[in-house]
């Protein structure tokens, strides 16, 4: 850059490392030079096409350079950069930086500029889904999740898009596709809860009997595929404990008991710790509503399940199961 006519007027600012720095990075000459010039650009507050280009180079070399992202956003605004072009640029570099925080945050800020969530919310939902900018964003997320099915940032960003633009109606279909691809993808199971509850606060969401029945049926179906899969167990227990505890023993228990006595798959079900663990949670909840005599019997069943877990099915968690057993005794 020091040789380029374009940058002749800028005096680069070297990194202030001191005399004998700890953990100095052996930067490549290229990286050192571009960040020295970039520091100078930021220090003078320069707003220009060359500054925009330089910020892009710095970001692509070190996508965690949050200051460069912040400055780039300012440049995008001040220069009136076409937001769609900027989104395309982010998509272009994203393949190299999919574990990065800043990239997703930048996209969210850009989307808000492009499409005011408050305006979009006034449109009917099917119209929103046809909006080319929203479609493009969902396709972008799809591509990342295709490459890396549990990418934490992509799933979080998807939640942001769904929340911001109220795209609730279609979300369950996306979740289904993902769960069908990998029934163990817990990010997809988490998204199922998000979609079902429309991310309402835990105490505000009302789970109807019909919806809960449908979720139990869905989960049982997935448990049949692979009983030793923590995700569906964790999901249904979490959901019912929070929103319909009585359905644990009234509806879920008969369903899993049927699985455990089914002649084709019982062995796989009763040898997974998640089955026994579910029994502990269910019986413990059931005991709360029973009279003294029945309560003791049900608690006894729960304690037996804890013992089976500690000794046979889940010895690595023996300490935890002892604790649960102790709690069942003390209550």
């Amino acid at each position, binding site marked *: 850059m020091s040789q380029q006519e374009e940058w002749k007027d800028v005096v680069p600012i070297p990194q202030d490392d001191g005399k004998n720095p700890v953990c*100095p990075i*052996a930067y490549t000459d290229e990286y050192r030079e571009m960040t020295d010039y970039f520091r100078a650009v930021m220090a003078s507050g320069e707003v220009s096409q060359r500054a925009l280009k330089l910020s892009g180079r710095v970001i692509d070399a070190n996508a*965690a350079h949050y*200051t460069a992202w912040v400055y780039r956003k300012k440049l995008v605004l001040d220069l009136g950069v076409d937001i769609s072009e900027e989104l395309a640029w982010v998509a272009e570099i994203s393949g190299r930086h999919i574990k990065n925080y800043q990239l997703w945050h930048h996209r969210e800020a850009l989307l808000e500029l492009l499409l005011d969530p408050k305006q979009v919310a006034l449109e009917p939902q099917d119209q929103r889904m046809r909006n080319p900018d929203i479609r493009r964003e969902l396709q972008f997320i799809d591509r990342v999740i295709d490459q890396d099915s549990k990418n934490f940032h992509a799933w979080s960003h998807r939640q942001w898009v769904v929340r911001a633009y109220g795209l609730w109606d279609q979300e369950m279909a996306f979740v289904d596709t993902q769960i069908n691809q990998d029934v163990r993808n817990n990010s997809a199971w*988490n998204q199922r809860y998000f979609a079902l509850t429309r991310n309402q606060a835990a105490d505000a969401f009302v789970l109807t009997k019909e919806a809960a029945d449908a979720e139990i049926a869905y989960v049982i179906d997935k448990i049949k595929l692979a009983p030793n899969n923590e995700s569906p167990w*964790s999901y249904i227990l979490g959901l019912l404990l929070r929103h319909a505890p009585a359905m644990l023993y009234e509806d879920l228990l008969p369903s899993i008991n049927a699985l455990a006595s089914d002649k084709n798959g019982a062995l*796989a079900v009763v040898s997974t710790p998640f089955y026994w663990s579910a029994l502990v949670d269910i019986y413990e909840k059931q005991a709360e509503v029973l009279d003294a005599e029945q309560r003791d019997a049900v608690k006894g069943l729960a304690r037996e399940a804890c013992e089976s877990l500690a000794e046979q099915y889940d010895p*690595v968690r023996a300490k935890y199961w002892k604790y649960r057993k102790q709690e069942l005794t003390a209550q």
Partner: protein
Amino acid sequence: MSTIPPVFSYDYRYDDNECETETSTKQAEVEDSIGDIYLNYVDPSSLAQGGVIDDSKHKLLRSRHEQFIHDSIKGLSSGFAALDSSQPWFSFWCLNSLDILGCEINQQLRSRVLDRLSRLQSPSGGFCGGSGQLPHLAGSYAAILAIVLVGGEAAYQAIDRMGMYAWLMSMKRADGAFTMHLDGEVDVRGVYCVMVVASLLNIMTPELVKGSAEFIARCQTCEGGIGPYPGVEAHGGYTLCGLAALDILGKTDLLRLNRLARWMSARQLAFEGGFNGRTNKLVDGCYSYWMGGAFPILQKALRRARCEGYMYDRAALQRYVLACCQDRRTGGLRDKPGKSADLYHTMYCLLGLSLSQHYVGVEPSEQVSDTASVYSVPVRMMQWGAMPASLLVLGMRSNMVKPVHPVYSVPYTPLANFVKYFYALPPLAEQLV
């Protein structure tokens, strides 16, 4: 402590029920590589009875790790430009790892670290990730903890305490959370970094903490763990952040602790012994701290006594760290076999090792009930301590490392010195509500 010898058994491997998916394929690959390692520790004569693992041979390669850290202090390769905006972390990872290992940190190194960090302090308060960059909450967190480890009044005085407070307040949002930097992202990490920094510097105020505990509680998912933001999947790293911040605030009761305990205990993997960070994800040495450090805090939140023990298998975790996470060739510790060692995993594996060797806790009868007074903050902080009666060191006796604080992740002595200095200064408010 269990007296039953640990049995090496493929029965503990993940059963995919003959339904293969991406998750189970990756899981099987990791178990293969770990099984190869654990098999080396099985006494061949015991194979007929299932194979008893001989844990007496595990050795912490202290001098190799020390060398790895000193090599990093000398210089890092160009690939580390990816961490060019996380510079305070280098100092923290190195000093803390050395301290936990019990290595000497000489005066010259202390001054060099202090010089480095002072140059990263922003004139408007807070510490920056790199030269000429904006102040950042994670960078500030790492810088303050590194200064705790540097120790001494000159180091303490280098911190612009009131600048820090003003800057932290400028990162605060109406929902109780904080943005990581100007115009930055928002998540539970931010709350944790702020609570650690503010409690250490004695700059907690009702304005600073308002709504933060409630924000964290909203991040607890139906699975029981804590995610970064309401709605997002529960994750080991954010769980430690949320739980530790709530402990500082004296508000762990806002969580559904039973579900949290269930989810946390499910993170330990039966065959590997280490922790994963999310349901159906792979083991990673760094969760030895993110989860291993959360257990003592959970213990306190549930008011469980020392004699009841932690709710995870301490020996299995130590076996994973010692047998699978040490890079024997380069020194340093790592995520899992096949990965390279780095400073991040070195520190977090060592923290996990320490927290599983030493039982650290606060007995239920000693817990402070008035958590609203600012003066309770240092009392509650320094109540934590290692209880020798529950020491469990797997392998050679020389494997024992220093006890660390589960919330602040540093050894106790430098922490106590730091707190003593800053709590001799007048607080900004006496009550936090």
